[in-house]
């Protein structure tokens, strides 16, 4: 008689624990798409990361490439060809076998010009067709018309689709599959019953039964819910919220160190921008730009704006990017003396408390940034005061984001900008469109027909050289040169690299925070909610 209640009790307990075996965190916005080839926004990228199976994965913690659906790979023909050895016995979430045909189908769809897939752009190094051939039962070869820099690493973003499944849209190879989507409210991902990975003990992964992605834009509300135990992870915390939480729940907060992101300032150097000539001369003067860089007290930005959770930046590579960093480049000193020396060398002089140029124009200019970003508004206030010490009047203008984008990429009706850059790639080839003078994202002077300065021509040369080479050490040497030129010429002033800040519930196990995004759930297939019996299945 006692057996039945005991069974019920055990079953009930098991069910209760399983129902609780769910990871919960927030997305800022609804995912725009569930098609992994059309992902452009962060929310869609999160869903893709958790559901998509890739041939090769960049381990966010070690920053090394690891095989996933491919056990081996080889890049040859100077980056035009990659051969994969595919993992046998893998199935999609609906049971369809994974074969080379799926790789071919995915590449064909990806490179279809009508699709305009943003994921495909890094592969489009030259015009022409991309060929995918199946070489044996588990071999796949992909050949590109031109060399692709960091070819293998690019496949980290390519989720393989099923060519044969009756449910092409929903069949996935990742640890989770899409369960439910309630627009404006949540996305529920359920564990993929056919996921190929097992842990060291042979237990099937993932450990979690589901992941609930609540759609929540408000950070205060997110924090409230985390405190109440309704969420397990808070991603990309503001320094304010981090500090508040660390005083209440010190074991929950995670500071993984400087991220890859930058906060930068750049000046308008566009030849036909609607600027007075004397201001154009200032902004095109290397000494002027370096003086401004010297004048900005980065340590105060780190201490006051980021509450210590950032690091003064020296160039386009964060300290978090171990391989590509040029350690010879150091952040500007923030010294008024050094700044004034550079300004005087450029012909500026102080008249009373005001800085004047050689033609007697008072040095006054505006700096724009995006509205609604408290960190930027505070940074601008600090920079305003720092430049005030040099006799420069800085006018702070905050604009809503579309207005700002219009000014810096269409009308060029601005003087200087404070902007944040989010970097998800370690490889400098992802920054080609920033450093090449002919590119649209060469932000201070886009779409140059020919490099307008000798140093931009140098940067073009070294960036193309590193893009064409397959030897990592040569590429590093070339990109070191680019970093040095950028430090010497200061087309962009790198202010800080913000730290990767998160919060994690004590219930969540196997967390290994990384600086690369996604910082906490990069190993989602191995995360566990504490107290679960799942690992004993």
């Amino acid at each position: 008689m006692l057996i039945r209640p005991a069974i019920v009790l055990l079953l009930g307990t098991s069910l209760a624990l399983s129902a609780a075996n769910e990871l919960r965190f927030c997305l800022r916005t609804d995912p725009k798409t569930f098609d992994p080839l059309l992902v452009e926004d962060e929310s869609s990228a999160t869903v893709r990361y958790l559901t998509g199976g890739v041939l090769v994965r960049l381990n966010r913690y070690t920053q090394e490439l690891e095989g996933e659906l491919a056990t081996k790979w080889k890049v040859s023909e100077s980056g035009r060809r990659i051969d994969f050895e595919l993992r046998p016995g893998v199935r999609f979430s609906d049971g369809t076998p994974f074969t080379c045909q799926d790789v071919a189908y995915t590449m064909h769809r990806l490179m279809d010009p009508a699709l305009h897939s943003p994921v495909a752009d890094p592969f489009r190094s030259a015009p022409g067709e991309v060929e995918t051939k199946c070489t044996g039962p588990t071999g796949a070869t992909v050949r590109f018309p031109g060399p692709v820099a960091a070819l293998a690493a690019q496949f980290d973003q390519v989720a393989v689709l099923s060519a044969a499944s009756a449910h092409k849209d929903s069949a996935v190879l990742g640890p989770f599959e899409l369960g439910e989507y309630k627009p404006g409210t949540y996305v529920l991902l359920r564990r993929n019953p056919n996921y190929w990975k097992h842990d060291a003990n042979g237990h099937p992964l993932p450990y979690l039964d589901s992941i609930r992605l609540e759609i929540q834009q408000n950070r205060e509300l997110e924090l409230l819910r985390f405190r109440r135990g309704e969420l397990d992870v808070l991603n990309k915390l503001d320094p304010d919220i981090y500090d508040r939480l660390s005083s209440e729940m010190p074991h929950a907060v995670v500071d993984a160190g400087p991220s890859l992101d930058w906060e930068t300032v750049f000046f308008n150097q566009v030849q036909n921008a609607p600027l007075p000539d004397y201001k154009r001369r200032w902004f095109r003067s290397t000494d002027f730009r370096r003086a401004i860089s010297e004048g900005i007290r980065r340590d105060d930005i780190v201490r006051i704006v980021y509450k210590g959770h950032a690091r003064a930046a020296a160039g386009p590579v964060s300290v978090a990017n171990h391989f590509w960093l040029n350690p010879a480049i150091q952040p500007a000193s923030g010294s008024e003396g050094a700044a004034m020396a550079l300004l005087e060398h450029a012909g500026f002089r102080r008249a009373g408390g005001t800085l004047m140029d050689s033609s007697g124009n008072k040095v006054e200019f505006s700096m724009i940034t995006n509205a609604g970003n408290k960190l930027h508004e505070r940074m601008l206030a600090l920079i305003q005061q720092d430049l005030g010490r040099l006799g420069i009047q800085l006018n702070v203008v905050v604009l809503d984001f579309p207005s700002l984008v219009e000014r810096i990429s269409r009308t060029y009706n601005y003087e200087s900008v404070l902007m944040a850059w989010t970097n998800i790639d370690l490889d400098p080839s992802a920054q080609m469109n920033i450093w090449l003078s002919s590119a649209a994202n060469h932000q201070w002077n886009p779409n140059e027909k020919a490099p307008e300065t000798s140093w931009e021509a140098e940067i073009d040369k070294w960036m193309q050289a590193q893009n064409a080479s397959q030897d990592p050490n040569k590429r590093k040497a070339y990109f070191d040169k680019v970093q040095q030129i950028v430090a010497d010429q200061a087309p962009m002033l790198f202010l800080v690299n913000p730290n990767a800040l998160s919060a994690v519930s004590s219930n969540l196990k196997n967390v290994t925070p990384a600086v690369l995004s996604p910082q906490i759930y990069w190993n989602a297939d191995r995360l566990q909610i504490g107290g679960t019996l799942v690992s004993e299945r």
Partner: protein
Amino acid sequence: MLASLLLRQARRILLTALLGGLLGATLVRLGPGFDVDERELDSRLSADSQQAIRAERARDNNIASFYFRYLVGLVHGDLGFSRSLNRPVSELLKERLPLTLVSLAYGVLGGVSVGLTFALLTVWWRAPGVDVVPAVLSGLCLAAPAAVIALLFLWMGAASRWAIALVVFPHVYRYAKNQLVATSQSPHVVAAQAKGLSGWRVLWAHVFTPAAPQLAALAGISVSLAFGASIPIEVICDTPGVGQLAWRAALDRDLPLLVTITVLVAVMTLVVNSMADLALAAWRSPSESTVA
């Protein structure tokens, strides 16, 4: 007679709302950053992809042709496609409108009820200092940003729809109180009091009832106020309603969504105001001209 009046009102509402849609679209088009896309700053995209993004945004540059296409779609029940959310506008509204309508109903009814109640009590007692509490309360509600009120409600675990009521209430209270006090000093009220009628009867039959049509004008304003307040409140509380949608559409310059929301708000405002006008017209003597 009534049918023709309603028909005329309906026609007026429709034409005005559609005109509002066109003007709204024009305002959006004239605003800065209309045809830019933040994806243009994505350095991973090739020149061709960026060009494709620009071409897509440039499609709606001609407002006249956009609005013509929009009207043709409207006739077929197609409200356009939201670029920012990547979904048909009609789907978005279908999901979100009920939530916002319920919040607005709570907000308007709550705000009007509380405001009218306080105003009636103030007039009923007429003792010195009796209006201090509602005055301070309305002052507090006016002084606090809607976002702060919303956060307070969140923190208390209360439904955010009542935050809308707190935004509406001070406007209703202030206007209603002034109107009722002014009416209470009319000669007919003095006469009624002199005749010995009870305070409650005087208040209801001789103060509130004559002032009711003017108070009805509050209805339309309350709806506009409530919708305006719903935007920051829904954004703060992450309520997936039309207010949050409007904010998102404004930030992304999502033209089809903005035009549809403008038309919707216009229809709501016009319907409520028309009902208030009809009430006012019904109160007036037949010798006066009626509102069409």
